[in-house]
């Protein structure tokens, strides 16, 4: 058992290595840079590869190239870099190329307040790339959870053959916290399923009965197949046929949306008897948790619902929550992004309010307590 003080960004790299990361390509940007630095240090020692690319777009492109060649791959960035990566995230989605994209959020838009925290990329992590698609976005809220969620991000990427967005923020990325990592943990590690058939029979994008996604050959493994960002049929070659497009694009959405039971994770805190709920995630969920404790001590029946899987959203759970409480407050370090999703889901069943901030400051527990009390006593 290792007990130590670890930084959030450091825990991300430790988790990635535990998951089997063997390739990292990226570009330096605050506040994610430690992830690149620590990957550069660690990867060659385990026979992996690190490359600092010439720009953010090169970072995601090389990451996808590494994954197509068989290595578990990751890149990390922050706001402006996440914007630059979007086109190729879409490429990863349509070509079903597993990889992990870490976005340590900072204040924006544009260069914004580069060293200040924000949770302003909630919607960008859902709809950042163009076109209809589904995506998996995870958002841990402690150093220990960053470690395990990074492993899970790799597992989901490999299992569902898709880019997985791992959202962090400046606060949890940079803070150091106690973490305990067992020497011999029994963490499940998932690897992509590779084809074993004769290469002449390999259809690179055909899903076998009982499987969720097609088997994935690595370049150089003996299966000479084609990968394209164009709509393609089961062979991988481009097609303009509407039935082919319909089948492919809906399959890419369904493989995620139909497996929410497996993908969606969340934490519930003091919700059993609650009549007020706070929905909050990442660093701000920690402010909310302290606020819940304070409000409880003052007699308010408040609980916290913390999505760890942000996308696909925990729709079923939010409906259930909405049927139990008289009000939900969505507390997030932005102007009300996830609020739109929670209101869409829960708005028919209960009141949904929001509290946010976009000035580079953290939301304190005191502020949340004041907002809830003022509203409840109005």
């Amino acid at each position: 058992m290792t007990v130590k003080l670890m930084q959030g960004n450091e825990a991300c790299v430790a988790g990635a290595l535990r998951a089997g990361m063997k390739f990292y390509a990226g570009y330096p940007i605050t506040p994610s840079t430690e992830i690149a630095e620590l990957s550069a240090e660690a990867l060659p020692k385990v026979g992996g590869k690190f490359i600092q690319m010439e720009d953010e777009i090169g970072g995601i492109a090389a990451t996808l190239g590494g994954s197509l060649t068989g290595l578990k791959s990751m890149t990390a960035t922050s706001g402006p870099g996440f914007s630059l990566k979007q086109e190729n995230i879409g490429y990863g989605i349509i070509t079903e190329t597993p990889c992990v994209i870490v976005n340590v959020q900072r204040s924006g838009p544009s260069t914004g307040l580069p060293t200040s925290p924000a949770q302003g990329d909630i919607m960008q992590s859902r709809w950042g790339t163009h076109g209809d698609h589904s995506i998996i976005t995870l958002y841990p809220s402690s150093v220990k959870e960053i470690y395990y969620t990074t492993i899970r991000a790799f597992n989901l990427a490999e299992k569902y053959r898709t880019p997985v967005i791992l959202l962090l923020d400046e606060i949890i990325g940079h803070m150091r916290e106690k973490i305990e990592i067992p020497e011999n943990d029994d963490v499940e590690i998932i690897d992509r399923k590779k084809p074993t058939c004769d290469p002449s029979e390999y259809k690179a994008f055909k899903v076998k009965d009982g499987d969720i996604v097609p088997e994935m050959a690595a370049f150089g493994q003996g299966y000479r197949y084609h990968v394209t960002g164009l709509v393609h049929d089961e062979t991988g070659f481009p097609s303009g046929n509407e039935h082919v497009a319909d089948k492919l694009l809906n399959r890419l959405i369904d493989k995620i949306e139909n497996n929410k039971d497996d993908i969606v994770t969340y934490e519930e805190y003091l919700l059993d008897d609650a009549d007020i709920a706070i929905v909050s995630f990442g660093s701000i969920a920690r402010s909310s948790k302290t606020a819940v404790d304070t409000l409880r001590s003052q007699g308010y029946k408040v609980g916290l619902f913390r999505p760890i899987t942000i996308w696909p959203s925990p729709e079923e759970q939010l409906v259930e929550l909405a049927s139990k409480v008289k009000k939900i407050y969505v507390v997030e370090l932005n102007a009300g992004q996830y609020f739109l999703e929670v209101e869409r889901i829960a708005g028919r069943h209960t009141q949904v309010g929001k509290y946010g901030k976009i000035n580079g400051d953290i939301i304190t527990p005191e502020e949340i307590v004041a907002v809830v009390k003022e509203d409840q006593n109005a």
Partner: protein
Amino acid sequence: MKRWELRFSGSGGQGLITGGIILAEAAILDGKNALQSQSYGPEARGGASKAEVIISDEEISFPKVEHCDLLLSLTQLSCDKYLSSLKPGGILVIDDSVENPDRDDINIYRIPILSTAKEKLGKPMVANIVALGAIHSITEIVSQESLQKAVLSRVPKGTEELNKSALKEGYGLVK
């Protein structure tokens, strides 16, 4: 043990973030929970620098200092900036180059941290370790054994004796 919230402030390059990390690591060695965070300007050296440490026996949720129990300020600028965040009854540790502030609801320790490092020890960069020694004497927030262990595991090889002396000088600054 109650939740302890500490803020170390000064200018960039004074080793305050390292100081915060060391204190948090010492607390973990004592079996406590600890959380360290920081904020800084765009400058790598100079500019304002701030490190925060929270130590508790319980789970630490909110990761920032809200009711500051102890403020360390090595520069006038940082003392002026953060003094108001120190809660009534809190502890202020300032270098003796910083003016005594006009507050009578706090405990003030005005001690020669920078000059001890620079003149007595001959190495200005160990000011953070001197400060940690002094803070230990005031609060006993972590055990002396864990603090020394944490210092020695973070400082560059070959500087162990120097840093042990810095700690000792720090202990002695507060009687």
